[in-house]
């Protein structure tokens, strides 16, 4: 398979990553430990889009409130729809980023970074780039955990059954449901992506 085919046929990993992140975030009320970054809060915010995997025209768009916790979003998941984009809040050391993450291309849009302190144009640019890079690194570290978990036997043995239970659950899920033992972060620390 050439690179273009690999890129096209592996796009589903983007939506599976976002579903896994949603499950983990809901299980732990957003609190999670991220390699090299320590304790981070990752919360699904007020915009969420779910799409049918085969019929991409079948789409549920949720705006306002906390759609990730709404019964309507759960119903869409139960119908087999997958996350195609979500507004996500990332909090680290009291600093907050807000972004829309798109599953298909792992693209960042409408990224709001923490307030910058520099006034000079050049300094402001470096500070903004530093903050964007920090966000990219946090998402990359989470994606690394997902990829290693996804490619491990624990994905099918423990993570998928737990996610199925989460999808079918009518009420919120207890943190014990999240199979932390199935999580893998790989042999080495993420370089960056």
């Amino acid at each position, binding site marked *: 398979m050439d690179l273009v085919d690999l890129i096209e046929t592996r796009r589903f990993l983007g939506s599976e990553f976002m579903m896994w992140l949603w499950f983990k975030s809901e299980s732990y009320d957003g609190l999670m430990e991220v390699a090299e970054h320590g304790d981070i809060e990752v919360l699904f915010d007020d915009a969420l889009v779910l799409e049918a995997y085969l019929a991409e025209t079948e789409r549920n768009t949720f705006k306002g409130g906390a759609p990730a916790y709404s019964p309507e979003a759960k119903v869409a998941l139960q119908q087999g729809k997958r996350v195609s984009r979500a507004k996500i809040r990332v909090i680290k050391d009291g600093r907050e980023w807000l972004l829309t993450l798109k599953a298909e291309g792992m693209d960042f849009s409408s990224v709001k970074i923490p307030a910058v302190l520099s006034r000079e144009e050049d300094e402001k640019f470096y500070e903004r780039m530093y903050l964007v890079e920090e966000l990219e690194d946090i998402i*990359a570290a989470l994606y690394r955990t997902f990829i290693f978990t996804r490619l491990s036997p624990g994905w099918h043995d423990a993570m998928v059954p737990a996610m199925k239970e989460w999808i079918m659950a009518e009420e919120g899920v207890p943190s014990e449901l999240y199979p932390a033992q199935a999580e893998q972060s790989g042999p080495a620390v993420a370089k960056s992506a």
Partner: protein
Amino acid sequence: MGALSGTLSYKMFYVQGEVAEGWQDLYLQQIRKNAFKPLKPEDEEEVSEGWVPVERPLQISFDLHTLLFDHFINLGFRQDKYAIPSALLKAHVEEAEREYMIQNDKQRLSKFEREDIKIMVKRKLKEKQLPRMKVIDMSWDLQKGRVRFWSQSSNVCELFQGYFEDTFGLKLLPANPYINAVQLEPGPEKIEELAVVEPTNFIEGLPAR
């Protein structure tokens, strides 16, 4: 520039290969060679694209100071396009054909006459309007080998990718779930597994694909 203020929406690319030795002079020369060239009404081309300094889209002169921000190369990718509405062009061409036939006492026009008239009408219309300008910024982090391009339109991103590769002689890989996974350097075994991994079926009774 998108990187200087407001919210950020961009497409990330990973640079493949090493930055060339003596890159400052080489890249400056290449950027100048691929700088934006303004369109003229008499040109056959209706689209032109090329590099401009960030925040100064009307400039086409470069020095290291204008593009190098510490370990970042910042540039604007400008695209100008003549956009003559097809209905307007058609109406003017038909009018010009009628006038030509009367003046030359003709009942019919040959294919070549029609083409010549169309070219002439297009040129006249282009003289009356300015091309539409679009400038999208890019920021290349030379240390990390990442390029951020302030557009997510697939057509524009493809065009930019080709232009970047031609200018700097380096390949770009666009961010996406597969490329991002490979960029994490998971090892050859995991990369092989990635190539055969199948979508997960989260719902019993529904096909995974």
